[in-house]
């Protein structure tokens, strides 16, 4: 940026700026942007820390360090920066800066922060923090003092030291906001106070670097452009039927755009989906609400597109069928629908790449639907066979089923206990025995409960039953059996056990 002093007499501030400047361009070198951003932040922090540390001791040392940082540039600078925090760095600068800038706050500070403020946290955290500090300086002076100081004090010891000095020198006005108010430079002192806020916020992960923000914008812009382009050529003036168009688009996507797009990336897909929807809408206006609904669901969950896609594809197949009809004279029959249904998932999977390309272009949509329809008809047959049987299988479950299912559990246990292969007839016999056993069991329990004058069957009745059966004897108690045969969870429920706090579970 601006080297206020020549190299011959570099101040920590200039050096720091230089480092920051150099660090910025350097980061792109690194393959990972995120890492670069982090690096920048680290660098900044390291340099700041180092500077701050040195500031306390020797100004020259700081300058040297800054110089070395500046010279070492990327690697070394980064290393140094990593050790220090932007805050410390800034502190150092401030410590040195006030010497020169105190008297000329505005002139020196304003121009600097102005350009810097322009670059918000997008750039390196250090930079932003640095720049933010400058604007903060200005407003801080005007703001009520002391607000920032206490908060900042707890953060850094060095800062506290500086703060003390600053407090004495200047009233602290907090508000680290980057207001570009033209305030005097006392802010330089305030800077230190303000800085801590900035660096903190900046140091928060992801704040300094804004690649995600940029991406979002880019994508949005891109999508917007797509929409504009798509809207313009196909049919201008159908924005109202967005939903309908979505449905249409679903049809168009029956090919599998949806599936592919969703599978690829949720966000991107959503965008092109919408674009495609618009286009599709233009192409086909019929699609029913169901399709649009499906489309909407598909659009909503692009990431999980698989399932909604399946639905959409099914519906789309139908829709595409309708569109095919609209486009062509072919009447959609049930088979065609089924085939289209089948085709859409297949076509979708088969043309993921083409879909993506189309997505971008948004033009081939009209072509795909007819193609999809054609495709759907062909692969429809095998799917057709599959589809009809589906509804048949679902039906009301007979009463026996759950009963048999429960019994089968014990039948399996029987075969397990037997440890020998069994015939199927033997298993059926076991089932019958179990049935009879259950009936008998319930009768016995009823008798026992009635004997005790109760309407609820309690574990005592069960114990009596087992005693009568000879399972529980004076030597073998119920608890022993429980421990032997039941898993731990049930044991805990059945056998009262003493727990801490003089409590017994289950309560007796």
């Amino acid at each position, binding site marked *: 940026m601006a080297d206020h002093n020549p190299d011959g007499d570099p101040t920590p501030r200039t050096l720091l700026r230089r480092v920051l400047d150099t660090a910025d361009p350097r980061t792109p070198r690194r393959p990972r942007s995120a890492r670069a951003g982090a690096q920048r932040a680290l660098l900044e922090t390291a340099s700041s820390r180092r500077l701050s540390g040195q500031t306390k001791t020797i100004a020259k040392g700081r300058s040297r360090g800054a110089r070395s940082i500046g010279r070492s540039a990327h690697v070394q600078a980064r290393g140094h920066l990593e050790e220090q925090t932007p805050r410390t760095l800034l502190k150092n600068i401030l410590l040195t800066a006030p010497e020169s800038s105190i008297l000329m706050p505005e002139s020196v500070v304003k121009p600097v922060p102005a350009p810097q403020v322009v670059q918000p946290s997008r750039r390196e955290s250090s930079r932003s923090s640095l720049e933010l500090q400058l604007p903060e300086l200005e407003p801080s002076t005007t703001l009520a003092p002391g607000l920032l100081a206490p908060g900042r004090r707890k953060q850094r010891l060095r800062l506290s030291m500086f703060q003390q000095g600053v407090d004495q020198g200047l009233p602290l006005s907090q508000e680290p906001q980057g207001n570009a108010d033209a305030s005097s430079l006392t802010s330089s002192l305030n800077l230190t106070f303000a800085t801590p806020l900035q660096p903190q916020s900046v140091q928060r992960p992801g704040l300094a670097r804004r690649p995600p923000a940029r991406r979002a914008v880019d994508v949005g812009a891109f999508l917007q452009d797509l929409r504009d382009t798509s809207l313009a050529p196909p049919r201008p003036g159908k924005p109202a039927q967005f939903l309908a168009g979505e449905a249409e688009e679903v049809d168009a996507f029956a090919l599998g755009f949806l599936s592919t797009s969703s599978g690829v990336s949720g966000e991107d897909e959503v965008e092109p989906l919408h674009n495609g929807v618009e286009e599709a809408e233009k192409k086909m206006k019929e699609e029913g609400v169901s399709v649009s609904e499906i489309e909407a669901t598909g659009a909503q969950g692009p990431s999980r597109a698989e399932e909604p896609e399946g639905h959409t594809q099914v519906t789309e197949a139908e829709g595409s069928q309708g569109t095919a009809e609209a486009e062509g004279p072919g009447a959609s029959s049930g088979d065609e629908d089924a085939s289209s249904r089948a085709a859409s998932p297949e076509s979708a999977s088969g043309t993921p790449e083409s879909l993506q390309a189309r997505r971008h272009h948004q033009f081939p949509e009209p072509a795909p639907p007819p193609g999809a329809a054609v495709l759907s008809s062909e692969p429809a047959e095998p799917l057709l066979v599959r589809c009809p049987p589906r509804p048949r299988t679902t039906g009301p479950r007979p009463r026996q089923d*759950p*009963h048999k*299912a*429960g019994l089968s*559990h*014990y039948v*399996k*246990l*029987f*075969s*397990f*206990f*037997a*440890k*020998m*292969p*069994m*015939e199927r*007839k*033997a298993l*059926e*016999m*076991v089932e*019958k*025995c*179990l049935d*009879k*056993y*259950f*009936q*008998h*069991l*319930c*009768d016995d*329990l009823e008798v026992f*409960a009635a004997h005790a004058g109760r*309407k*609820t*069957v*309690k*574990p005592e*009745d*069960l114990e009596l*039953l*087992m005693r009568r*059966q*000879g*399972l529980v004897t004076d030597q073998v108690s*119920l608890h022993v*059996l*429980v*421990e*032997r*045969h*039941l*898993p731990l969870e*049930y044991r805990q*429920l*059945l056998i009262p056990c003493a727990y801490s706090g003089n409590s017994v579970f*289950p309560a007796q």
Partner: protein
Amino acid sequence: MALSTIVSQKKQIKRKAPRGFLKRVFKRQKPQLRLEKSGDLLVHLNCLLFVHRLAEESRTNACESKCRVINKEHVLAAAKVKSRFLFLSKN
């Protein structure tokens, strides 16, 4: 613990008790009665022991007849023998 633990299990045996199934069966049989919450576990224990005894008896029968496979006759005979515990009428 149980016998199964001693012998290597070729297949996984679920040790969970089908509590819902048991409750449903009891309700269907005796709608006027109520079953306590831990009662069904004991019922399950009872079933386990019953099945266990039945299986043992069937196995013994099959081994006595020198068959490698358990037949329904073996099972029937076992049930008949064990009916004295449950008063089952042999089918």
